[in-house]
């Protein structure tokens, strides 16, 4: 078993009547790029705030690097660097001064500032006031500050939020390279599945404060439901055949019919459909068994099934 860098056990956080996190269990293994995925308002930032000791959940336990966050806050947080929501920097200070403020608080060597600036490629802009930075530069500087103390765990809350396409691409390649360059485990939230698909090795899926999935990206792929795509003419007759085989509502997509019943679609079943369609005099030009993409799996897991829109 691999070491767990960060774990949440049955963490519940309420804001008044609203339960933002409902008995959340998460385990972030060392070396992972863990994608924490959930739609807006799912509770991602809340979970991150709990993990940083900024909120004290009403129930549950959080451990970082083997240290209990409640009992050993400082030891636990010593190995964490984070960028929460937008990178909040002091606009009246330069990038370097911002890092220096944090460096002093942490009591670490000044040389680490240049190393962190190097990692995010911000040496040149380091002596300009942060107030003059673009959002992309602020994100990088925030990341540099998070990397300052050579953390074992890097927590990034929607690191590409608000960036333009080029900025998003740059930030993603930067993040992708970090585990190798720094040895840090990365826990990053996002509401974009494609982003997690591109970057992550592990996924946690959160919705309405509940964890719907926690595991490797491969394991999530295996949960993907297969679907059967049929193009046959005349299409009305083909549909008739499928209905009589027990499929009430095939999805129409132009000339195609798509069957998505997860349990029922097997290769054998597909072959027998083919035979039945022939028998009924339909001309079958396409019959294909395909695994749904991650997007569909995500939609299925989060309950947004059968989007007819």
């Amino acid at each position, binding site marked *: 078993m691999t070491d767990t860098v960060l774990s949440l056990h049955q963490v519940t956080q309420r804001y008044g009547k609203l339960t933002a996190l409902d008995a959340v269990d998460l385990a972030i293994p060392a070396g992972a790029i863990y994608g924490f995925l959930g739609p807006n308002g799912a509770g991602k930032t809340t979970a991150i*705030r709990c993990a940083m000791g900024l*909120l004290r959940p009403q129930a549950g336990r959080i451990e970082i690097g083997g240290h209990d966050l409640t009992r050993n806050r400082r030891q636990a947080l010593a190995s964490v660097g*984070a960028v929460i929501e937008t990178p909040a920097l002091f606009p009246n200070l330069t990038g370097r001064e911002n890092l220096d403020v944090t460096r002093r608080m942490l009591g670490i060597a000044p040389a680490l500032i240049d190393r962190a600036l190097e990692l995010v490629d911000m040496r040149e802009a380091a002596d300009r006031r942060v107030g003059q930075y673009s959002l992309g530069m602020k994100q990088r500087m925030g990341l540099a500050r998070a990397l300052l103390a050579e953390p074992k765990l890097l927590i990034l809350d929607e690191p590409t939020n608000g960036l333009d396409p080029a900025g998003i691409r740059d930030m993603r390649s930067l993040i992708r390279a970090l585990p190798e360059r720094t040895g840090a485990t990365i826990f990053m939230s996002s509401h974009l599945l494609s982003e997690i698909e591109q970057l992550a090795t592990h996924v946690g899926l959160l919705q309405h404060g509940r964890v719907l999935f926690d595991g490797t990206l491969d394991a999530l792929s295996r949960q993907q439901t297969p679907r059967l795509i049929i193009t046959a003419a005349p299409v009305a007759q083909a549909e008739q055949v499928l209905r009589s085989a027990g499929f009430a509502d095939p999805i129409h997509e132009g000339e195609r019919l798509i069957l998505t019943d997860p349990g029922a679609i097997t290769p054998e079943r597909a072959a027998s459909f083919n035979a039945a369609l022939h028998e009924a005099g339909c001309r079958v030009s396409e019959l294909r068994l395909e695994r749904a993409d991650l997007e569909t799996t995500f939609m299925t897991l989060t309950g947004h099934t059968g989007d007819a829109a």
Partner: protein
Amino acid sequence: MINVLIAEATKLRRSLVLLVAATPPVMVFALGVLIVASGNAPPEWTMHTMAGAAIWAFFLLPMSVIGLTALIAQLEHGPDTWSHTLALPVPRWQIFLAKALVALGLMAVVSLAVAFASWASALVGLQLGDDVVIAGRFDPMLALRLYGWMFVAGLLVMAIQWTLAMRFRSFAAPVSVGIGGTFVAVAATSAEKGLYFPWLMPVNVLASDDGRSDMAIMMGGIGGLIVFGLAIIWLSRRDWG
């Protein structure tokens, strides 16, 4: 702890702290020069020193406290850096204590600057005015004593304003309380119960009745330390989400 203090002081760089801190001494200086040069000077030095101290205690001290504590707190509220600052593996009480010390340090500097400006304004006014004289000599010890004790008596007001400024994201709460407190102090200066009103404590340092001024210094000073202490504990423990 010293590193945390330096870090907190660094955050003031290129902020408007100089503007806020320079305003009271500049005002005292300008007003003092005008009064002395126009021949309306108090007839002797002790009275001049007391008059400057009264303006400070009544009005400029509480206004400076509002301004400086709001400015220090807005350094974090403005860019919303609390979650970064408070998630650092540093004892939170040290962070808040450092912020309190920065505020107190600035207030001490402004106090001294006002004392100096009051003295300097008379010197300049005497040069500019025709046949103006102030009897006696300037007593620097009296000035230091007055401004020093007013600082101590003002600790409670400083603690109240600092706590409100730290706690609330908007500066509306501390500013309203500060303006209200100052107004009540001006309106109810000599009221019997005024002895217990935080905003009157620095003013009461000037009371001719020694008992009253000693009480003001004691209540303001001890009360201020207690409120600062409790506020630091409370702010360190509360959720910041």
